[in-house]
């Protein structure tokens, strides 16, 4: 009885995993096939990977796009993590009524669709001379309400006694944050990192509006651009998609252990 139950469990999980992984398999298979075979529904590897890859390179510079996205992400994510973790810490460890009200304002704005603030934001960024710079993409997402919320929840687990003890030892407030509060939060930062990384790596509408020149084009814009031709070449698209998705999967694989315990910290 027990064995059958276990077997059923595994069968259920196995089928679910296959369903979840199938698109990835298909994506890689597609990257090795001709467009016409992909639309005909082929499910096995072909020999066209290099041709597709070459065709992508000939139409546009995909590596420039990877480089741009990587640059933006590498600068933006750590900065956002620092700023949001500081804010989360500030809201949690220095309680005040005014700041709590402010926090509620933050939460409320989380629900506004980006499309609603896009035009004024575009205007503002243009007027301060940031249009068509990577910096315009970086600064717009520095304050992320979900991250602040997430860090605030996580800092709840940090005992106030530890902070008090450090104060008695004469540590400065800023020193306490960096030396006492941050180190035990490794997994929280890992979880936040995955969240922020995914968000920035796949960021689409805002970079589209603010980045103008070809040299600044990001991966998502590149993908969107090659998918809108009169003659759509799915082989080329899937090669690009594989290149674009690989980093997110690798990052998740390496950090997934921390990711789970990071959420754990926040959900206490």
């Amino acid at each position, binding site marked *: 009885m027990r064995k059958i139950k276990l077997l059923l469990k595994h069968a259920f999980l196995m089928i679910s995993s296959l369903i979840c992984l199938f698109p990835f398999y298909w994506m890689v298979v597609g990257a090795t096939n001709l467009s*016409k075979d992909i*639309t005909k529904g082929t499910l096995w590897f072909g020999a066209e990977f290099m041709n597709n890859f070459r065709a992508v390179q000939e139409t546009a510079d995909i590596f420039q796009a990877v480089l741009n996205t990587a640059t933006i992400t590498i600068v933006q994510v750590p900065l956002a993590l620092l700023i949001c973790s500081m804010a989360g810490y500030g809201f949690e460890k220095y309680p005040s009524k005014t700041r709590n009200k402010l926090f509620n304002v933050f939460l409320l704005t989380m629900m506004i669709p980006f499309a609603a603030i896009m035009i004024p934001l*575009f205007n503002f960024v243009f007027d301060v001379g*940031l249009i*068509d710079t990577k*910096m315009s993409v970086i600064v717009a997402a520095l304050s992320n309400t979900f991250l602040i919320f997430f860090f605030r929840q996580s800092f709840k687990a940090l005992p106030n006694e530890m902070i008090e003890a450090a104060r008695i030892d004469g540590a400065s407030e800023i020193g306490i944050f960096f030396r006492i509060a941050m180190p035990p939060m490794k997994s929280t930062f890992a979880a936040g990192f995955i969240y922020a990384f995914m968000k920035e790596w796949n960021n689409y509408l805002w970079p589209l509006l603010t980045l*103008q020149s070809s040299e600044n084009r990001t991966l998502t814009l590149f993908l969107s*651009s090659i998918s809108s*031709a009169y003659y759509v070449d799915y082989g080329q698209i899937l090669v690009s998609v594989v290149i674009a998705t690989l980093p997110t999967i690798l990052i998740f694989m390496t950090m997934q252990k921390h990711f789970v315990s990071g959420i754990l910290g926040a959900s206490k």
Partner: protein
Amino acid sequence: MKKRLGLLLATGMLSFSMILAGCGNSSKESGANGAGGASGAAETNDEAATEETQKITVWAWDDNFNVAVMKTAAEYYKKLNPDANVEIEVISNSKEDIYKKLQTGLASGGKSLPDICLIEDYSIYQYLNSYSKYFYPLNDDVDYSQFSPYKVEVMTYNDKAYGIPFDAGVTGLFYRADYLEQAGFTAADLEDITWDRFIEIGKQVEEQTGVKMTVANGTNYSSLFRTMMQSAGAWYCDSNGELTITNNEVLKESLETIKKMRDAGIILECADDSTLAGAINDGTTASVINAAWRVSTIKAEPEQSGKWAVASTPRLNNANSVNASNTGGSSWYVLDNGQDKGAIVDFLKAVYAGDIDFYSDILVNQGAVGTYLPAQEGKAYQTEDEFFGGQKVFAEFASWLPEVPSVMYGKNVPESNTAVNTALFSYLQGDITVEEALTQAEDQLKNQIQ
């Protein structure tokens, strides 16, 4: 206490504004090409003027089609004018993305716009209607009689013509000659037919070969009924922009024809363009009605070489309907940001309104059928294509081009597409009559268009 607090905040703000300032500087190098019209751009314009070469930025979609064409045009201009100090930069984004950028830039008061932008014929009127002051009219510079009249009609607003007409969306009936032969039909049997005849042929083709006569996007028939409508010079609205849906006999016949085709079971309904392309390539359809650019999809399957042919578009029973129509197509527009347009206009005129070799080049390499009428004298149009059994495919398209009836597309093409398509859906399901469908579409549109 307040003072200290302020001091602390100021430190934060200062470091922040330093980041901002740092980037502001770097933006001047890369931002100059945006050549925005309003505020912040004043100093960048000065910089551009002192530079030796003038940079012309172009927004276009499709790297293998429009973008490649514009790059070719730049090369031709260099050959024609080796001394001209211009550099043409083509920025490639998807069509939808370009519209987003354009709409945002225009809504922000003409900020950060390109010098030249590719815009679809169906969409241009909504831009001219709302933002004509940001577009630069070319009727003083360009001889529009040299272009297909129906293309010029589309870009005329308040008696001014904007833009340079580019590719034609002239439609044709691409068909599998082998399937039709099997069912007992020759090329002559498909030339200049009505849709009713098309349906009859279709039934026989399916009987004899088991293959569906034609293929369409089952979630969106708008491309098909637009093609039918324009073949009779009709549209969603009249030349004054007033909606003509309920009183539109041509639209009514178009919808009825689609229902007839569907009821006869001759349409293979696909969910979107990827499955439609798949159907063409794996031989599950005997024909497809589309513009010249469909050639690249068809040619993607080399095994079908020699099996395809092209005939004129079927017509409606309506007396005005001819065997020529149009779907899609776009043109180049010059954005007005207050700067001197001399170099830009000179470039467009020299290449797009004068160079026949250029048109032959893009026809051969990109399969782009231009709408500059003298270009059809070019040799490239007379090439026999083995893939189409030696047929002079592009000469055929060029011969239909002057026949395409002119219509004014108006500013609400996307809304109208959706509204009519939604109503057609209920009609095809048999839930409502065609009259009810038209009323439903018109009601919806009246509510939407204000």
